[in-house]
């Protein structure tokens, strides 16, 4: 199993990192989530249906872990970053194609206001361009709920970003 997981980590480690960062919005929590996800994946590996894609199964574990640990993450988010430098590094990791740096700062702040259920749908949607059906499978939520949450999340973000623009 070790070799198998080394390959999984090699193949999906980066993607999982992105997902963890997007969900937690901060590096330290993302690291914890990343670690916890792999740990759970190893423990539950016997239950993994090999006829299905490993990455989706992994992301399901990640999101579920995020939900489980939400209280802790939310609490820690009060601190967010230990320094401006850390925040800068976090934000500078986002590709800046045709988007201003300041706009990402606004997005980062706006993401924080999203509730967990909205955030996980939104993040997964943009993370891999998953379809509503795929999201429904990963999150074990009906497709209708996915659509509704996706719309609410977008609207909320847009509104928040617009508000920031007008400030």
């Amino acid at each position, binding site marked *: 199993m*070790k070799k198998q*997981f*080394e390959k999984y*980590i090699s193949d999906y*480690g*980066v993607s999982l*990192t*992105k*997902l963890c*960062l*997007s969900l937690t919005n901060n*590096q330290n929590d*993302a*690291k914890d989530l*990343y*670690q916890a996800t*792999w*740990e759970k994946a*190893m423990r539950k590996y016997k239950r993994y249906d090999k006829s299905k894609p490993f990455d989706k199964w992994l992301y399901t574990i990640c999101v579920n872990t995020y939900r489980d640990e939400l209280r802790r993450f939310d609490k820690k988010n009060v601190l967010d970053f230990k320094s401006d430098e850390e925040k800068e*590094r976090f934000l*500078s*990791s*986002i*590709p*800046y*194609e*045709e*988007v201003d740096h300041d*706009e*990402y700062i606004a*997005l*980062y702040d706006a*993401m924080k206001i999203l509730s967990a259920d909205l955030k996980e749908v*939104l*993040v997964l949607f*943009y*993370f891999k*361009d998953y379809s509503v059906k795929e999201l429904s499978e990963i999150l074990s939520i009906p497709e209708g709920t996915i659509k509704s949450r996706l719309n609410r999340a*977008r609207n909320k*973000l*847009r509104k928040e*970003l617009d508000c920031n623009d007008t400030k």
Partner: protein
Amino acid sequence: MTQNEKFDKMLRNYCNRDVEAFEFKSKKNTVKFTSLVAACLVFVILLSILIVPELYPQNEFTLTASAASESELKYFTEKELNYFTVGSKEIIPEGVSFKISGENIKEIYAYSEKEYLALAISSWPREYNIVDINFRDKGESKIVDMPTLLIVPFEKDSNDELTIVRKSNKYVSHLKVIDELQTEGEKDITITSIPIDENRKFIYKDYSEKYNDRIIIEITYFDGTKETKSKEVTYKDGKIVF
């Protein structure tokens, strides 16, 4: 680029950032993975510690020497008799080994090539072959010639509580018990030829159906004379009850 397109682009970028800066991969992962493996190993070891005693229970049975009635023979799972105690004295037996056979420790075999001072085996909670050996007199008795025989039971100064528990698919061979502190004129006592079936039940061809049998005890005296006693016995859980 429309506002909607820009919005989607921002979010897509936000969720697909460059993670190199975060040192999540390579070394970090390796270290974390190693820790994980170590944690799994520790878990397995702990699990083994919990499970193995279930499979190979330690000290679940003891041998008791009647020379000192409270003495115990500690039996360990290494499948070799290590020592037993007489009072506070630890005795390492020579020429004698008690072995456990079968994966689930269902039998105890006692092999003796020498005279052996072992007077009792007791406490075998898992199986019915609880063994009690209580020799006559004060425990100076010696058992000789007990090939593959498991149990040597005698109640002190009396045959009333003779219990034999032996599991074998063969006949129990001749059991000979020599009592060094014989009562006057007594040399040895012999229990002869007790057949046992595959289910470790004693077979008494003439009587077995009724569970009411007669066992023969042969006593040899120093002067060479022999005395044969017969005893009515019944059976309970594979044991002979006198």
